[in-house]
Structures are given as C-alpha cells and as structure tokens.
C-alpha cells in the first residue's frame, strides 16, 4: 500500500502498516543508532582537535599574563581582579598534578602494561619469591589486576575532566584579556556565585546527582565492560592472581568457539525472549480486559475491585512471589508439596512438577507473572481507556456494533496505537525481570546435559548474570559479556520505541 492510501485505511490497517514500516526500517535504524554513538565519539575528537587549534592560536596572540596561565591555571584570573576564581583554578591544577604523580600515573602505566600485547594486567603476581641475600622464600604482595582496571578507568576520566577545566580556564583568561583591552570590568566573584542560583542553576542541581552517577555507575560499569576483554574468573581471583587481556576471545567463545557454552547461551537467550514475549502480552491483554470489565457502564464498586487488584502490586514481591513459589513446590511426596500442587492432584489428578520439569516450571512462572502483572497493566490501560473519545463508541452502537466488534474495531487499535512504546518498554523490562524468575524458581530446574556455567532451565540472561557474579559459579568475564549482550538486546528493542513514539507524536489524525 502506498502512502496516499494511508488516510483511507482503517485503524487496524494503519497499525499494521506502521508496524511493517517500523520493521522494514529497523536495520537502518539500528545502524543509525550505533553510528550515532560512533558520531558522538567522533564529534568529541573533532571538538578536541578544534580546541587544540584554538589552544595554540590563543597562546601566540595572548599577552604575558595569558601566556602564563597556560602553565599556571588561574594566573590570568588573579591578575585581572578575579582572585578567588583564579585560586580555585590553581587549586584544581595542584590537586590534579598530585593525583597523577602519586596515584594516577602508576595505575595508568600498569593498565597499559600488557594492554597491546595481551599480557597480564599488572606486573608482579602475589607469590613467594626467592630472596638470594637472606636465603629464604619471601612473600611479596603483588598487583591487584581488578584495582588496576578500576583506577585506570578512573584516571582516564580524570584526565578528560581536567583537560576540559584546563581549556575552559584558558578560554576565560583570553576573554578577560579582551575585556581588559576594551576597558570592561570582569564580573565579581560574588556575582558569579549568585549566577549559580539563576542562569547557572543547573550546576548546583546536577552536580551531586552526577557525581553519584559517575562514581557508582559510570566508573563501575565501564570497568565491568572492560572485564569482558580479560580472563577474570574464579581461577584468576584477585588479589592472589593476575588476570590478563584476551581481546575478543570471550565473545568468540560464547558465539560458537566453546560449543557447550554457546549452546547454553542460545538456550538461555531463547527462553529469555519467549518469556519476555508471553509475559508482556499476557499481562497486556489480561490487563486490558480487566480494565474494560471494571470500567463497564453500570458496574458498581469499581474502586473496591480495583483496590483488591492493586493489593497484589502493593505487597512486596519477595513476599508474594516466595509464598506462591512455596505453594507450587513439588516435593518428594504429596505431603511434602505446596498447597496448590496438592489441590491440583486431589481435584484433577494432575501432578505439577514445579522445579522438577522445565516445561511445567516455565508455564507456571508465566501464569504466576500474570497474577502480579495484570493489575499493573490494568492501571495503565484504565487511564488510556478513559481517553478514547466516547462518541466513537456511541456512533458504533448506533451502527449496531456489539461489544466484541467494538473491542476489535475501536478499543484494540486505539490501545495498540497509544501504548506501543509502553509495550516495548515492558518487553525490555521483562527481559531484565530478575525478581519473578529468581524468587519463583531460582532459575531451576537444572539440566546438566544442556546447560553449563551454572545456568538452569528457567534462567534468564539477567539471573544467569547474577549467578555468575556471586556464588559457586563465579565467572566475571562471562558475566560482563552477558551484560554487554543484554545491553545490545535492550538497545535494539528501545530503538523500536523511538521509531514508534515519534510516529505517535506526529500522528494526530487518529480520531
């Protein structure tokens, strides 16, 4: 169908048309996304290049005071009346030099020591070394590879931050020189501080949250991404051992290099996607139906019904999921089993093998997830259902459409249209749904023939990641690789959101 016909389509056809187009455009959007990341980095370097050019040009043009502030930060400020600001710049420079000399440079050196040769991270390993002078073995505490990577990353960030501040101070210094030439007076320190509550209010607002984000999210995350390129696992545990750089070997392993591992990965990935699909759509349609029932004209006690459903969201998940998991447990005998398993056996003679049989466990998990998930999507759907123009329903009723027809022709297309982005976000959320899987089944039951590295039959990538970071199956490098792959999957699906949400904002002729 070409674009001209678009306005003649019914809402359903429009939805499918849009979906088709989104899928068709998807590869280019994906390429665009990763290109955008690349472009961002490229722009950073171009900006840096321009900065360097300005840097030398400014040095040639500037007078002695400006030239001096190339070496001593803040000199230009101090010489032109901004003493306090100049002192702050000077302090930053001194602190940075001290940081680099006593801390940053040694760690950075060790970080790059084996980086290009696939050598060890760090130089000396903790071990007993022979001391010739004393004639004994001496224990020498060596390098801690993990610390080296962590501090190496931190130092690289510090250098970038410092460079940004340094270039800014020089730029300001040159501006001050220009201002002095024109006879203008520089802003007083008090006034500049005052600006922080006004035009520059974002600086006090953002500084603390961003500091927290930087120290406890960005640096650790980048560190863990780097770990994917090393052989850090339980056999190279720090600080007793050094681990080494291995390039892309871990990625090659998981994509076929190590057949047991790649088989496990594909199984876990497959179940993760199946789970996310069923969890998302069962909750979505269930929630929509419940919302329709509650909001039906003539139904009383709407608030009571809704509140009872909301209770399942309100009870903390570790309470609600763990009690249900115990209600479903299949023990050695029926007396040792959960109450639901017992009742199912007594009533239907059906033996639920929760935690024993993978398929039983998987189906049970999806059903239990509906229990806690439907109320949530019911709340979201209720709000949107109210927004469907009432005259649509009225004219449909006049045309003789029954409730089923109204649902299919009006409600469903409208809902799909408005909640498209929500569906995809929920899908991503379900890929990362740790609680439901871990608290219900713990990832089990296992199957040693099909799964390795601690993964089990109902493990999602995220619960596998958890097991690989903690406990007996610790394997940090594999955990990092999986984390990166989860990121790629999430990013891929998020792209659909941005495609769709721009479609929604531009779409105003849906009536």
């Amino acid at each position, binding site marked *: 169908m070409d674009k001209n016909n678009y306005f003649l389509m019914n809402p359903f056809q429009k939805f499918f048309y849009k979906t088709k187009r989104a899928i068709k455009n998807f590869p280019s959007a994906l390429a665009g996304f990763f290109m955008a990341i690349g472009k961002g980095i490229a722009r950073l370097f171009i900006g840096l290049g321009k900065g360097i050019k300005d840097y030398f040009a400014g040095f040639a043009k500037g007078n002695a005071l400006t030239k001096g502030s190339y070496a001593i930060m803040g000199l230009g400020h101090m010489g032109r009346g901004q003493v306090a600001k100049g002192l702050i710049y000077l302090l930053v420079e001194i602190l940075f030099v001290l940081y680099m000399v006593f801390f940053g440079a040694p760690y950075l050196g060790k970080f790059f020591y084996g980086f290009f040769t696939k050598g060890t991270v760090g130089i000396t390993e903790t071990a007993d070394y022979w001391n010739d002078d004393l004639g004994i073995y001496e224990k020498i505490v060596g390098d801690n590879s993990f610390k080296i990577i962590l501090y190496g990353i931190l130092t690289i960030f510090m250098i970038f931050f410092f460079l940004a501040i340094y270039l800014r101070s020089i730029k300001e210094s040159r501006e001050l020189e220009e201002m002095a030439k024109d006879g203008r007076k520089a802003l007083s320190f008090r006034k500049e501080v005052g600006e922080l509550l006004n035009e520059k209010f974002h600086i006090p607002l953002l500084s*603390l949250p961003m500091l927290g984000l930087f120290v406890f999210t960005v640096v650790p995350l980048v560190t*863990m991404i780097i770990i994917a390129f090393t052989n850090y696992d339980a056999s190279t545990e720090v600080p007793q051992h050094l681990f080494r750089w291995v390039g892309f070997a871990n990625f090659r392993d998981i994509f076929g290099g190590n057949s047991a591992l790649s088989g496990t990965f594909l199984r876990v990935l497959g179940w993760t996607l199946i789970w996310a699909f069923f969890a998302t759509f069962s909750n979505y349609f269930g929630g929509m139906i419940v919302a329709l029932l509650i909001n039906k004209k*003539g139904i009383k006690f709407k608030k009571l019904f809704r509140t009872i459903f909301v209770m399942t969201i309100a*009870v903390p998940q570790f309470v609600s999921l763990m009690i249900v998991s115990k*209600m479903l447990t299949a023990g050695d005998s029926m007396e040792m089993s959960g109450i639901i398993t017992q009742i199912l056996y007594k009533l239907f003679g059906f033996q639920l093998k929760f935690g024993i049989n993978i398929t039983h466990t998987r189906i049970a998990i999806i059903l239990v997830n509906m*229990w806690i998930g439907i109320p949530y999507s019911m709340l979201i759907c209720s*709000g949107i259902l109210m927004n469907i123009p009432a005259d649509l329903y009225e004219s449909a009723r006049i045309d003789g459409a029954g409730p089923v027809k109204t649902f299919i022709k009006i409600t469903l297309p409208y809902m799909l249209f408005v909640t498209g982005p929500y569906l*995809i976000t929920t899908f991503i959320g379900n890929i990362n749904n740790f609680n439901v899987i871990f608290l219900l089944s713990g990832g089990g039951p296992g199957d040693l023939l099909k799964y390795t590295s601690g993964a089990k039959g109902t493990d999602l990538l995220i619960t596998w990641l958890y097991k690989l970071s903690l406990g007996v199956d610790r394997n940090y490098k594999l955990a990092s690789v999986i984390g990166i792959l989860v*990121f790629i999957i999430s990013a891929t699906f998020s792209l659909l959101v941005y495609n769709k949400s721009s479609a929604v904002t531009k779409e105003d002729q849906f009536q």
Partner: protein
Amino acid sequence: MITYNDEKKTIKRRDRFRNYQTGVISGSMKVRNRISNGATYIVLIILNIIALTPLVYLVGQSFRAEAGAWSSTFFPKTWTMANYKRLFTETPFLRWYGNTFFVAVISCAITTTFVLAVSYAFSRIRFKLRRPMMNVMLVLGMFPGFMSMTAVYFLLKILLPNHFQSLLSLIIVYSSGAALSYYVAKGFFDTVPKSLDEAAFIDGATRAQIFWKITIPLSKPIVIYTILTSFIAPWCDFIFVSFIMSGVPDVGMYTVSLGMYKWLEREQIQQYFTTFCAAATLVAIPITALFIWLQKYYVEGITGGAVKG
C-alpha cells in the same frame, strides 16, 4: 441500488439512533444489559478471589500452630499467635525491620532530591551539555543495573574499608544512581506551563526561587510518586542487598527481604516457614496500606510515564 436488506438496516439504524437520543431502552436490551452486567460481576469477583488467594493463605499460615513447611489444608487446623511471639523473642526480625526502615527513609530522601533536581534541570534549563547528558544517561539505563555490582562492591571496599557490608553501603547503592530515573518527573515538569516561570522571572525571581516556590508546589503528584516508589524500593529489593551482604556472618545487618529469604532456604524452611508468614504479614501490611492510600499518585506516575514512552 438499494436492496430490501439495506432498507431494513437503515430502518433499524434510525430506530436505534432515536432510542439513543431519547434515552429509550427497549425491554430486550434491558435484559441483555442485566445479564452482561451479572456476568461481569461474576468474572470480576472470581478474578478478585484468585488475586487474594495467596495473600489470604499467607496470613492464614502465619497463625498456624502445626509445625513444618507443608500443610494439607488451606487454612490451619489450629490457630495460634505463637509465630508472632517467636518473631519478636527468638529472631532478629525487629532489627531487620529497623534496618530496612532506616535505609528506606534515608535513601528515599536522597533519591527524591536527586530525581527532582535532575528532572527540573533537564526540563527547564537549556545548557550546552543537556542533550549529550540525556543521551549518555539513556544509554547507561540500557545496561542491566546489576552488571556493575562487582565493581561497586570493590569500590565500596576501598571507600569504606571496615564497613563496606553495612547499611551505609546499601544507602549508597540505592540512591547513587537515582539520576537515571529522571524521565517520569521530567515528563511531568514539561507539562507545567512555562508562562508561570516567565511571569515570576519578570517579577525578579531567580531560577532557584521559581523551582522551590512555583514548580515544586505545583508538582505534588509527581513528588509524592517519587517519594512513594523510592521509599518502597528498599523494602522490595532483594538482588542488591543479597550481593552487598553476601557472606556476612552477623545476621543483624540484614534487611527484611534478605533475612526472610534465608528462612525459606532448604535447611531452614521446616523450622521457619510459619515464622516467615508472620514476618511477611507484618512487612506487607504497612507497605500495602501506604500504597493503597497513595495509589492515585502512583497511577498518575506510571500512566504518565507509559504514554510518553
């Protein structure tokens, strides 16, 4: 060409329209309405019963006198208060409760401040790094939050050498990444009319004054939503606390979720199942009450976030 059938349809349609306009409902329609409403009630009541069953079971089991993890009846055969008594006399449950409350209050205060500050800055102030920062945060949010924990654990060990497995660490973990969840509140701030800001600006107010005196008071729903979700998060979290507290011998440091999780492990469940139920009831009641009391704001928050995507 108009066929007989078409004509019949048109007449039917006209009648329906008239009835609709005059509000006349025919007898057969009344009956149909009543039947469909009755069916709706039945379905809703059944669904509500299913929704409540596990919770009723939980509360029932907390009063069970028979020992052991498994029972053959839905409700206990003999009722007792002993499980609750045991909770306060023999277990560190009260400590855990206090720990969780403490962590929840502090991290809720920090998280709320951070989220509101970041959302306001991104919503109202146009500065050079705004777009790049938002994009970087978007990308950061796509990584599984748990991925960085190994390094965070290591970092905490360096920063708090003697107390890295402590409540302070938990507070840091819960609140340091708060900035990443700015988008719901930002979406709300975007809808607060800008003309109010401009009017105040002309009257000589600074940005800081506008934030405190105009935007925040107008944003009560989103403030309450942020407080509610960030206060409840530590009560519900299992993954981070189990990582931070892994291998801690002193169970007094635990929060409710971790301590109660351990009660249901294979070795302990026979002894502690009914105690778990009692504890779970005591955790669930205040959280549920709080949630239901403030559900209006919760709904506003999640729907706002969902529709904007």
